């Protein structure tokens, strides 16, 4: 533990005592959570539990009223904006699939690649072999090689979800935040997505928000249950789902 001299924590992501309220509504209430490097964590919780707000805080979209949010043990995320946080290596997949619909699948991935994002760099950009190889590899992983020249807007819902995961892969962040990746997917697609995320987790730290319990069970990772903006229970899926408070919250008693 003596490597920790400059780092406040060894965690990839460290949230402590975070509060956010919107017009008096406490969306996040004394939320504390840590994510170790290389870990995959599933976040569950009923509607309005603060799952998406938590992601907004981590990615800089929402500023917390108080509390600490540290990335990689050193960086205070509450002081940075979305672009800077993305540059640091935090990628996000949105709840509603958000791809660039009027551009091709290939161009979507090209835009996501973590190369020079400056105005000058993109103006004088010329493709390189390394870049196109990376795009090919991502296309293969997300099973969209055939559709590479199609407009992203013409993809099916499930394919859009994968394209967005592919964009995360192209971005190659240290930490991936994945918001409801299987919403609206068929059972087969859900299964494939779980496989995909497990594959991604071999090289990346991942945080997944999901309602689908079969999917969470299939991931087989540590689960955190949020309720009213705070952590209600943490542990394996079996521990969490047998927790009385969790059952109470989910059944609304």
């Amino acid at each position, binding site marked *: 533990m003596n490597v920790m001299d400059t780092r406040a924590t060894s965690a990839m992501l460290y949230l402590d005592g975070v509060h956010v309220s919107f017009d008096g509504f406490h969306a996040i209430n004394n939320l504390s959570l840590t994510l170790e490097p290389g870990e995959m964590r599933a976040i569950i919780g009923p509607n309005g539990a603060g799952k998406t707000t938590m992601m907004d805080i981590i990615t800089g979209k929402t500023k917390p009223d108080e509390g600490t949010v540290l990335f990689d043990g050193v960086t205070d995320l509450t002081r940075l904006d979305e672009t800077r946080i*993305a540059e640091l290596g935090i990628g996000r997949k949105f709840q509603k699939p958000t791809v*660039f619909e009027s551009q091709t699948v290939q161009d979507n991935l090209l*835009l996501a690649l*973590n190369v020079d994002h400056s105005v000058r760099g*993109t*103006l004088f950009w010329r493709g390189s072999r390394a870049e196109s190889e990376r795009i090919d590899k991502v296309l293969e992983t997300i099973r969209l090689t055939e559709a590479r020249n199609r407009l992203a807007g013409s993809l099916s819902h499930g394919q859009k979800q994968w394209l967005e995961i592919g964009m995360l892969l192209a*971005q190659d962040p240290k930490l991936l935040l994945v918001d409801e990746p299987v919403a609206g997917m068929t059972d087969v697609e859900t299964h494939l997505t779980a496989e995909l995320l497990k594959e991604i987790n071999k090289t990346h730290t991942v945080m997944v928000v999901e309602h689908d319990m079969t999917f969470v069970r299939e991931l087989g990772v540590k689960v955190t249950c949020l309720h009213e903006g705070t952590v209600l229970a943490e542990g394996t899926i079996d521990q969490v789902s047998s927790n009385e408070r969790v059952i109470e919250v989910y059944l609304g008693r």
Partner: protein
Amino acid sequence: MTPHMLTRSLDRGATIFLLVVAALGVLIPLSNLLLPAGSFLQVQTYLVALWGKYVCYAILALAIDLIWGYCGILSLGHGAFFALGGYAMGMYLMRQIGTRGVYGNPILPDFMVFLNWQKLPWYWYGFDMFWFAALMVLFVPGLLAFCFGWLAFRSRVTGVYLSIITQAMTYALLLAFFRNDFGFGGNNGLTDFKDILGFNVQADGTRAALFALSCLALIIGFLICRAIVSSKLGKVLIAVRDAESRTRFLGYRVESYKLFVFTVSACMAGVAGALYVPQVGIINPSEFAPGNSIEAVIWVAVGGRGTLVGAALGAVVVNYAKTFFTSGVLAPYWLFMLGALFILVTLLLPKGIVGTFNAWWASSNEKRAAASVSAAAEDGVTEPKMAE
């Protein structure tokens, strides 16, 4: 611009457009100057000036399409950048009048003598030199756009709010330029020009040259826009247009991209204004009128936004119609027609003329490709038999 950017930016439509503009830019001046007056093929001088005006409008339309069609920034104040470029050129032309003015003052333009001013205001210094005026044509609109954009885009002012403040900007400039003590000729603006670079602005040769130069500026402006939109930066612009916050989460500094195209676009509008002024012979504050900027947006909508060629075409078509209708008995109804045109295009041709044509062309190509695939499939059925 590097060679790979040039080749990448020239697709078929772009090449055809460039060839047409180049041909017009050469043939119209030649026909005006070389053919005998009154000959059937001779383009009369007033027409050269009129079409020169349309070409300047086409450059302004390109500038608007670059930011609106590709980056989703709807500026309803682009006429301001056009007018500022025009004023910079007008100031040069005023200083060229010299002692030939009504009051014969070698330094002060007539309106300053009339206002009893004793010396030239500092901001008129340097405008007796063409190179300085030419630099200001780019610099003044560019600087205003940069400052305006820096404030607006950094505070994430978008959509209709941005459109409204661009209107306010051009309206504020309109009021300022109306004032006599602002030093730009007040209500009357700048006029009575004599020479440009030593050539008489009224002469046929000068008008022909100005027309050719306007076409050249249109070609260069078009190439710059094509180079921008066909680069990776162009893809980022479209990404910003379609899903701004997503682009931010990918790590792009959206405000820098907007600021870049907004400033480039303002400089282009400035050049358009500078070429416009010597051809129409006057620049006055009415060029800042909010209505002018809105009209320019209509040209782009009619031609097809996000197509560049369409923007230029829309500017020419709408202005040709304007000239045609406002010179006849229908003159009082022109604004109604323009309004109706805008509504009809929005309802029936939301992609504009060129956008609709492109969509039709793409779908008919697809059908042809599908037909040839099914034909090939039929051939495929017979092939194995032949192999046997």
